[in-house]
């Protein structure tokens, strides 16, 4: 029996330490991991918890991230609670196996500490890796700070392992900005946290010898489509369970999360839509913009997959202008978020069709400053007053050289 850790009411943790403690409290059967910046401390801390007797499960050190996720898939199919962590190139190496995990409906929890993709090599944060895994059939949850990294890890097990869901789940946090920034975190006691997550319920475990199962069999044109459709349907419906878990977590902790998080949006005319730590900066900028007479708001989503089209469309439909912030290379298109937010607004009934603009920013952790955000709110205000775009749809912020903009 693992020893419990006595936690203070308030701990000073960075996002990685917060995630490590959440994993420890979940009493995972198998963590298979390979280190990569900036997610390394998650499994490093976890490894020291194992060696000091605070964890009963297995900690498997492998030779690559591909092997780490493969071991996770094997252990999860065998019938255990399983988790790991990675970033950037390591995540890229895992991608092939991510599809195995989701196709086999194994409720693995993966901490993805968001970081740029090479080349050029860059160890800092942007959202490129998140988008690389976008279509892999995993639930993707987004967090802004260490407290949320902790809370969402606890909830991720509940969501992934729910019998209606059984879909592997990624908890995203921003590399360095969240993962290496120490803040006050209010943890639950080990006992309360574990009680919230609950005992692991296995489904079609490979170790159930009385009911042998074949995982990952071949299905060509005759059945492949049906299996993928089943996963898609389960993902689309999982938001119901995500909201249920958010609700139960709020009852336990008083911390209420929502699929759509808005700030000052009720009477806003213009808003910034972003993911991750940028949301917190944007709230400060919106507050300042209000002092200048701009009716500014901020919106974000907690689950990037499933994408909450209807809820988001409804939350944003009455705005006059929205800036959609993509912290990744759109590579020959509008930003990924831009496309999805735009679709949400087109889907929702009685939308006032806000004017949309797309800002590409922060690649390789180029700073996004309050001045940048102030300018964005100014441009939004101009769009709102003109009733049309007053600048190109897609613009790059903080890029050296001639201005880059498209469409």
């Amino acid at each position: 029996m693992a020893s419990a850790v006595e936690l203070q009411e308030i701990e000073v943790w960075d996002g990685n330490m917060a995630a490590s403690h959440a994993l420890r409290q979940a009493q995972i059967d198998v963590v298979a991991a390979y280190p990569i910046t900036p997610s390394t401390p998650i499994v490093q801390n976890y490894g020291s918890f194992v060696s000091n007797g605070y964890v009963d499960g297995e900690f498997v050190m492998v030779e690559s991230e591909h092997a780490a996720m493969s071991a996770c898939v094997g252990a999860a199919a065998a019938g255990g609670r399983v988790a790991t962590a990675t970033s950037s190139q390591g995540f890229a190496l895992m991608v092939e196996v991510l599809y195995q995990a989701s196709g086999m409906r194994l409720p693995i929890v993966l901490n993805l500490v968001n970081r740029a993709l090479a080349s050029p090599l860059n160890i800092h944060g942007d959202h490129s890796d998140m988008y690389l895994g976008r279509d892999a059939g995993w639930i993707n949850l987004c967090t802004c700070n260490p407290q949320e990294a902790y809370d969402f890890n606890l909830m991720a097990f509940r969501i992934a392992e729910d019998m209606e869901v059984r879909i592997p789940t990624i908890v995203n946090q921003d590399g360095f900005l969240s993962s290496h920034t120490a803040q006050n975190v209010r943890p639950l006691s080990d006992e309360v946290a574990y009680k919230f997550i609950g005992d692991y319920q296995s489904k079609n475990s490979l170790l159930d010898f009385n009911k042998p199962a074949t995982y990952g069999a071949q299905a060509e044109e005759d059945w492949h489509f049906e299996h993928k459709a089943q996963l898609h349907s389960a993902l689309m419906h999982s938001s119901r369970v995500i909201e249920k878990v958010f609700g139960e977590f709020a009852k336990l902790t008083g911390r209420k999360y929502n699929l759509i998080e808005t700030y000052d949006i009720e009477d806003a005319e213009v808003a910034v839509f972003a993911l991750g730590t940028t949301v917190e900066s944007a709230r400060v900028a919106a507050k300042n913009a209000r002092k200048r007479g701009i009716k500014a708001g901020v919106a974000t989503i907690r689950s990037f997959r499933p994408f909450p089209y209807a809820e988001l469309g409804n939350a944003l439909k009455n705005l006059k202008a929205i800036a959609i912030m993509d912290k990744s290379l759109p590579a020959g298109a509008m930003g990924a978020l831009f496309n999805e937010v735009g679709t949400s607004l087109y889907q929702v009934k009685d939308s006032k069709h806000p004017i949309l603009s797309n800002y590409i920013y922060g690649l390789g952790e180029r700073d996004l400053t309050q001045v940048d955000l102030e300018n964005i709110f100014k441009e939004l205000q101009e769009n709102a007053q003109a009733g049309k775009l007053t600048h190109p749809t897609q613009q790059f912020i903080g890029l050296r050289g001639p201005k880059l903009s498209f469409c």
Partner: protein
Amino acid sequence: MKGWNDFEIGAILFPFANNGEEALESHNNERDYTPESSFKASVAHWRVEKPVHNSEICINCFNCWVYCPDAAILARDEKLRGVDYVHCKGCGICVDVCPTNPKSLLMFSDHEDNQNALKNWPQKEEKKKN
């Protein structure tokens, strides 16, 4: 035909209808396989040529049985009993390793009737002299 919402999640197949542990005790011919199991479902769609077994020449050395990558060679009561065409992929390895002269397994077109094939079996080859 089942729809996408009819089957077990996770693309999982269950080879035995029930009691897997009991099934392991019995011979594979007597087990209660499900139609989705790879024992019952044909996994040989891509075979172009098939091996035909000639029991008249076969010396029951089991080379073919050992080497077949799909366990598609049928052996019963210590005798080679031919080929399981539901599982044979037509790779020809069994023919390659068969030591008799002429060979006791030969590849024929998948459409060839086995009786015809046996009638057209080649004669013993003379040993090549140096």
